[in-house]
């Protein structure tokens, strides 16, 4: 499944200076993605997932942004690279698809031409040949009558079709890495499943390495090999799909898992929720960012827990001070109440 390392991110920090103070959107994120993998990054809105992805693409353009750390795509350093270098990588070696397919295509150009634009931004393929390639791509992502549809305008496409077109566009130059930022959030549930199946198929058939950003663990379960859980600009837990789903270590992950509606369990009166608000990244809580919402917090949580493995083969890491045994006892994998009841004392 997984080959050599394709993307390695090391201590990535993204801060935005604002009038109210500095927003620490990405706070020391490190991870690796190996070739052929699907890695999901999961977290609530505002966890820093999209900012991180945009930064890797070199698209965090605010003059108020401060970026530090390292990120390598293969051998290429992405952080601090010159704009023309990044421009050459974007869309060619590394492509990104976005949350809202309805507005992500330019309304005044034909869909096929927008794919042609990407192909010709990086290669000298003649226009007609590039258009032929666009048609093939549209066919591959499951758009019926692609010759005709390539000549249509975005408003003549449905939301799901537009996302397919955007995926086709992203894949047009066979990028090494595809970053999909909430690709299904704006779509109907049935269309969501189709798009996820498409992404999975592209991963299995063509070996497209994919970073999937989502707030929906249900989406992750379908296609991810590994999962990173982000909270308040940090990765709080990282592991394989099975590790995260069957042996979650961080109370925040318990909360995320507990808030999935499930049909295979007796219905709870109401869906479990994580009480409280996501932390303000303007003035994040001291120590563990999840502390104010965590029912199991104790004094040590005022220090930042490191992201480290607490056993096993070291592939499963988390940021929580609780002992593994204590965690076992606290989390109850029963109907929608995963360890988030208030502490007894």
């Amino acid at each position, binding site marked *: 499944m997984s080959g050599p390392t394709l993307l390695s991110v090391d201590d990535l920090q993204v801060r935005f200076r604002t009038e109210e103070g500095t927003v620490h959107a990405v706070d020391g994120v490190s991870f690796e993605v190996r070739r052929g993998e699907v890695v999901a990054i999961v977290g609530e809105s505002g966890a820093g997932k999209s900012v991180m992805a945009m930064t890797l693409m070199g698209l965090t353009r605010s003059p108020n942004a401060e970026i530090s750390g390292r990120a390598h795509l293969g051998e290429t350093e992405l952080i601090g690279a010159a704009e023309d270098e990044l*421009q*050459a990588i974007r*869309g060619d070696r590394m492509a990104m698809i976005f949350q809202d397919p309805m507005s*992500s*295509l330019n309304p*005044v150009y034909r869909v096929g031409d927008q794919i042609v634009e990407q192909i010709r931004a990086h290669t000298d393929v003649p226009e007609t040949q590039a258009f032929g390639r666009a048609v093939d791509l549209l066919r591959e992502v499951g758009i019926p009558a692609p010759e005709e549809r390539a000549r249509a305008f975005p408003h003549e496409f449905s939301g799901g079709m537009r996302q397919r077109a955007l995926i086709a566009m992203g894949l047009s130059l066979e990028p090494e890495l595809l970053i999909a930022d909430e690709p299904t959030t704006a779509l109907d549930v049935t269309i969501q499943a189709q798009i996820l199946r498409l992404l999975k198929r592209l991963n299995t058939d063509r070996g497209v390495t994919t970073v999937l950003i989502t707030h929906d663990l249900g989406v992750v379960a379908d296609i991810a090999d590994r999962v990173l859980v982000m909270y308040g600009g940090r990765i709080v837990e990282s592991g394989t799909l099975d590790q995260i789903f069957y042996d979650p270590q961080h109370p925040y992950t318990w909360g995320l898992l507990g808030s999935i509606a499930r049909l295979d369990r007796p219905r709870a009166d109401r869906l479990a929720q994580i009480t409280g608000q996501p932390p303000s990244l303007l003035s994040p809580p001291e120590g563990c960012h999840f502390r104010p919402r965590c029912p199991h917090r104790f004094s040590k949580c005022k220090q930042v827990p490191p992201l480290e493995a607490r056993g096993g083969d070291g592939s499963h890491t988390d940021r929580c001070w609780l002992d593994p045994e204590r965690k076992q006892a606290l989390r109850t994998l029963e109907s929608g109440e995963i360890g988030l009841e208030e502490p007894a004392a």
Partner: protein
Amino acid sequence: MARFVVRRLVSMLIVLFAVSLVTFFIFQVLPNGDPAVRMAGKQPNETQIEAIREEWGFDEPVYVQYATTMEKLFTGDMISYFTQLNVVEEIWKGLPRTLALAIGAAILWMAFGVALGLYTAMRAGRVSDTLLTVLALIGISMPVFWIGALMNHYLGFELTKTLGFELFPNGGYVEFTENPLEWLHHLILPWIALSILFIGVYSRVLRSNVLDTMNQDYVRTARAKGVSERQVLLRHVLRNSLIPVVTLWGLDFAVVIGGGAILTETVFNLQGVGQYAADAIGQLDVPPILAVTMFGAFFVVFFNAIVDIVYAYLDPRIRLEESSA
């Protein structure tokens, strides 16, 4: 398309009819509006006035007068009450001048408006943006009769006196066929005077459009595709920001031809349609006023239709069949 054209033609006729009615009847209720009295001279007596009334048909019922006037307008026989000159011929004479003024100025204000708007949008928030914004606002606030008069006096008159030769002429118009260079020479100041206001307006409109468009998701997509920043700006940001500006352009151009240049033409003594209208209004001379108003209304309605067609081309989301008349 055919349906669109037909619908547009019908609505054009209705508008022109309404405009002609309103213009004509305003002069029936205007105080001191009786043309016979004014035509009869300073100390008229009743018999003279009666004679004029009879000769010009002012004694007929109003609707008959309206009908005859309109008939004369469309057969080209309309005569001014005061100059006794053929109105349609006079308009034809002035039209090339008005067109020369309007076309040149429209190109000027579009080019500079877009350049300035794009530049200020790129520099949004910086000193140069603030400076140019203030300048644009000053430009918008300067009435053309004032800036035109200043230009005429200082650049056309004083500067010529100081330099000893005419860098800028002091008003007037030279036919293109007579001397193309002098034609251009005489139009430079009027073009600038007329454009300043529009440059200010267009740059502001474009600036805010560009800033809006830059935050669009499809611009982010274009960047993610690895398209060069220049192409992102031209093909995606500017192309989409221009749609409303082009609409504005068509309408403003029509308005300038149809009477919007009255002040500019008068200040620079260009003897175009606008100045003709201004003179006619001064004399409450109904036939030319009516003709020029109809002429202006025609241009506005006509360009409205053109703008709709162009708009549908620029923005594929709009279909002509659905856009209302």
